[in-house]
């Protein structure tokens, strides 16, 4: 396992493994509709509006900006799925993470860590 990013862990559920899907538009959500179950979605800004229709199917969400006050956190907490906000992945390319197996875990003081599973 390789640590690829760190952010703020914002939900009551703190750990999950699964396939990561990088969502950039509503078209990506439509394409994912029939297989959203148990996926972990990665978004940039305004994730709640885009992910809203499939949030109840997902097993985790990650956003590269934001904080605990965002709508995405509120809804993730309602569905009790892990949520990392403000994920910093350094020089990694977000698109390269699409369809990869990842793990979200939470360490001290609500540090949300993203691992790439080989």
């Amino acid at each position, binding site marked *: 396992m390789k640590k690829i990013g760190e952010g703020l862990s914002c939900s*009551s559920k703190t750990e999950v493994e699964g396939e990561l899907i990088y969502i950039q538009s*509503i078209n990506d959500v*439509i394409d994912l509709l029939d297989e959203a179950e148990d996926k972990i979605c990665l978004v940039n800004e305004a994730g709640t509006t885009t992910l809203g*229709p499939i949030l*109840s199917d997902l097993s985790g969400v990650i956003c590269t900006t*934001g904080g605990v006050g*965002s709508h995405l956190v509120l*809804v993730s907490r309602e569905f009790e799925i892990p949520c990392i906000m403000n994920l910093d992945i350094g020089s990694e390319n977000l698109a390269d993470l699409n369809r990869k197996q990842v793990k979200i875990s939470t360490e001290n003081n609500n540090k949300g860590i993203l691992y790439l599973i080989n």
Partner: protein
Amino acid sequence: MEHINFLITSMPDSVLQGGKGSNLIKLIKLGTNIPPGYIITTNSFENFIKASKFNDKLTELLSKPFESNEIIEHSAKIIDMIINTQMPESVINEIKRGHILLNEPNSSFAVRSSASIEDTTSYSFAGQANTYLFQKNINDVIKSVKKCWASLYSPQALLYFLQMKKKNDILSLENVRMAIIIQEMINSSVSGVLFTTNILNNNHDEMLINSSWGLGEAIVNNLVNPDMFILQKDEFKIIQKILGKKERKSIPNSVRSGTVIIDTNMQSREKFSLTDDQLRQLHELGLKAEKAFNRPQDIEWAFENGKLYTLQSRPITTK
């Protein structure tokens, strides 16, 4: 008036005013500072649809089962019908009369969706319906009202209801009503969200605040990494301050209605967006709201010229 309820004189009624609207009225009755305004009731939306030429077409489109790949096309058709249909004269006249009766009829306005299923403890519709800030004149307010009505049929909203139907949920578009809140715009220097319980560690003896420069849409829409403050709840004490990047802010568009996002300067990023005195005021607001609603609250707030305004309060739906 038939179509509008003034915030300051009305009784709360979530069926007519939507969840957000009726909560605002409850907050006024608590004595909290709310930007003045009124609500265009859910009846107006229903009357608009029924009186329009597209009512039958809309019913037909929504009653047929549709697949996800038809969403974009269906949504575009419905939104086009709504935007290109004249608002009833009776509603326009009441909006104009409502404006004259406000203290500052020439200021800018926020036009905010208030759906009848939003902000309940059952359905997570948070972030799905639209808000239009800094609408500079009555014509732009009226256009934004129609855009809020139309947002009920955005691709995201249609997809949401399609998914609910597949799960055999009873919720459908026929159950949803849209009220619209029109309020004098607060040009906030700093804004954010206050949770009256620490939702990061479920500590009910603490409060948690996110704040950043400019308008609050930057925080709720994940545009910035905000400052974070943890406060003791029973008696004001600052437990922790964490400096956020606050890399951008939302400010009024100087040319036309709406807002723009700009980068913040280094000096703004490197200092905390709230003073200890402002934290104290937020603490007091949090205690008051939590006590009045008898459960932990998620409160959106803003400071303008040193004055604290409450923009929304809803129950925390956390586990």
